[in-house]
């Protein structure tokens, strides 16, 4: 029950924070200017949290609950700072790919740029177009943010450093990541804008399709580790990281995860050159900021889960566990930015084909092979060899398909006589 208390506390806390951000920040900024707005926003948020904690303490009793609630609040604060760091990280890494310097003006080497951006976004006017479905439009960012935040409760940052160490942690991850789709629907539908609507449709199609390979891979890992507890999965990688024993599962998970969080090359539902931001098109100010925050938290989340499930989490020599964890997470996130700097966007039909005709069958085959290996108690390297062979085979196949002569448009000069004869 303690775990679920954390979940309930987070829902209440996030609701309170979102309300104060969206309403309080806007009004105070309009009345008194942004400096005052930031201060009152912080004070309001703090007051709301204190009230929530005291209320929960009175209702449920017990100091243990206060510790859990404090862990939840700490997690929220940590995530806000982490998102600021990741936006700067992305701009700096991308700038390297573009041979630029990136933000340099605010603070030394631009390290205060994200803070300036955050203040700018929160104090902007929050416009709600007259034709929108007001209640749904207003609730959409919160409905998108809450499941995103709730997933973090089961994330272990090091051995035992977790708010709710659930037995069914991996199932929890899958269940709440599906719930976020409702927020995207609400945003896309209530905006009553054709681009938002198309973006929302794309989002639902993409997210429910790519949820399936993720679920199958998660089950596969649970099967190998013998538990759905995330810490147990990490500790099971003590001998060999799962990226070594299950490289194919890693590839499927990473690709499907990129699609699930809508990052390049799968940023189809908010593609600015096609649907102009998709479901988020009509949003501005603090409401847009909540979407933005959730998107970056998702980016961080994929890095964290790739690290936990395939790169051995906090396991590593010499350095402290928490440091290893963040080194790996930021390396994975760097790969995601590298993708963004390298690959063009997929088309929606290519995306659906890739998901349904390729990743889902492959995930199921991978599951069956893993189950057979686990059932007969074969050593891990057997699985590693099979999966590596499959991965190399697929890579060769894709490479030969992409570069086959038949796919290249061939140009040939023909004489006028030849053309006449052909006709």
């Amino acid at each position: 029950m303690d775990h679920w208390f954390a979940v309930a506390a987070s829902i209440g806390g996030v609701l309170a924070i979102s309300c104060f951000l969206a309403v309080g920040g806007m009004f105070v900024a309009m009345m008194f200017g942004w400096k005052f707005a930031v201060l009152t926003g912080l004070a309001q948020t703090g007051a709301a949290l204190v009230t929530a904690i005291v209320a929960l303490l009175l209702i449920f009793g017990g100091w243990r609950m206060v510790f859990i609630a404090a862990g939840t609040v700490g997690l929220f604060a940590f995530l806000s700072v982490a998102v600021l760091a990741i936006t700067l990280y992305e701009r700096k890494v991308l700038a390297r790919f573009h041979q630029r310097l990136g933000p340099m003006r605010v603070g030394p080497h631009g390290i205060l740029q994200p803070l300036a951006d955050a203040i700018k976004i929160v104090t902007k006017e929050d416009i709600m177009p007259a034709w929108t479905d007001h209640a749904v439009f207003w609730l959409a960012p919160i409905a998108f943010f809450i499941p995103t935040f709730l997933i973090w409760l089961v994330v272990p940052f090091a051995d035992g450093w977790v708010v709710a160490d659930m037995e069914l942690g991996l199932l929890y991850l899958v269940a709440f990541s599906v719930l976020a789709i409702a927020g995207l629907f609400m945003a896309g539908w209530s905006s009553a804008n054709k681009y938002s609507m198309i973006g929302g449709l794309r989002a639902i199609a993409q997210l429910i399709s790519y949820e399936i390979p993720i679920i199958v891979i998660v089950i596969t890992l649970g099967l190998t580790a013998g538990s759905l507890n995330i810490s147990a999965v990490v500790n099971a990688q003590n001998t060999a990281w799962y990226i070594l024993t299950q490289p194919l599962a890693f590839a499927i998970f990473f690709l499907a995860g990129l699609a699930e969080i809508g990052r390049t090359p799968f940023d189809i539902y908010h593609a600015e050159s096609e649907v102009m931001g998709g479901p988020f098109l009509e949003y501005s100010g603090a409401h847009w900021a909540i979407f933005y925050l959730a998107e970056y938290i998702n980016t961080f989340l994929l890095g964290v889960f790739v690290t936990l499930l395939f790169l051995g989490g906090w396991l590593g020599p010499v350095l402290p566990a928490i440091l290893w964890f963040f080194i790996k997470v930021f390396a994975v996130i760097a790969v995601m930015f590298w993708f963004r700097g390298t690959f063009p966007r997929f088309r929606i039909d290519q995306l659906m084909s890739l998901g349904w005709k390729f990743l889902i069958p492959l995930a199921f085959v991978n599951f069956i092979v893993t189950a057979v290996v686990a059932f007969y108690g074969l050593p891990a390297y057997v699985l590693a060899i099979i999966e590596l062979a499959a991965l190399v085979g697929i890579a060769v196949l894709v490479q030969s398909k992409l570069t086959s002569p038949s796919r290249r448009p061939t140009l040939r000069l023909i004489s006028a006589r030849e053309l006449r004869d052909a006709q």
Partner: protein
Amino acid sequence: MGSLIAYSFLAALIVGGALGVVTSRNVAHAALFLLTTLAAVAGIFILSLAEFLALVQVLIYGGAITIVLLFALMLTRLEEFSNVRDNTQWPMAIIASVALLVVLVGAIFASRPSGAALRGASFQEVGTQLFTKWAVPFEVASLVLLVALVGAFLLARGGGNPGDDGIRDGGNRS
């Protein structure tokens, strides 16, 4: 005390959401109310110490079913449904609802748990029971889903020309 307050809150959410589903004139609002109700039911499962069931409830009902419903809604024109509040099937719906209520109440009273039995079943226990003792009902449930899938497929193919529609003609030919 705490669990009583939590239960009352969740029950209010469930009943309010269900009322919203049947009374709201807007189909998208009705779908979102349905999502609220189903999510609150997951909360009731948690209070009953059924963690696994709660997570599956969120995943299947909150995630998959409602989201597919919303997807279908986005593809339709809302003006067509703006004034739909009931249809000709309501007598059948009453019979089905009352029958379900009778079955559920009967099941609750038949299997009244004793105080000692109140503890959460572990994930392993659920799995073992599901694949040994209850394997046949489990498979029958998957069969029902398969039938629904085939039905959806037939509906989606629509009323084409019977001559070139292999599946629909299959029964007649044999």
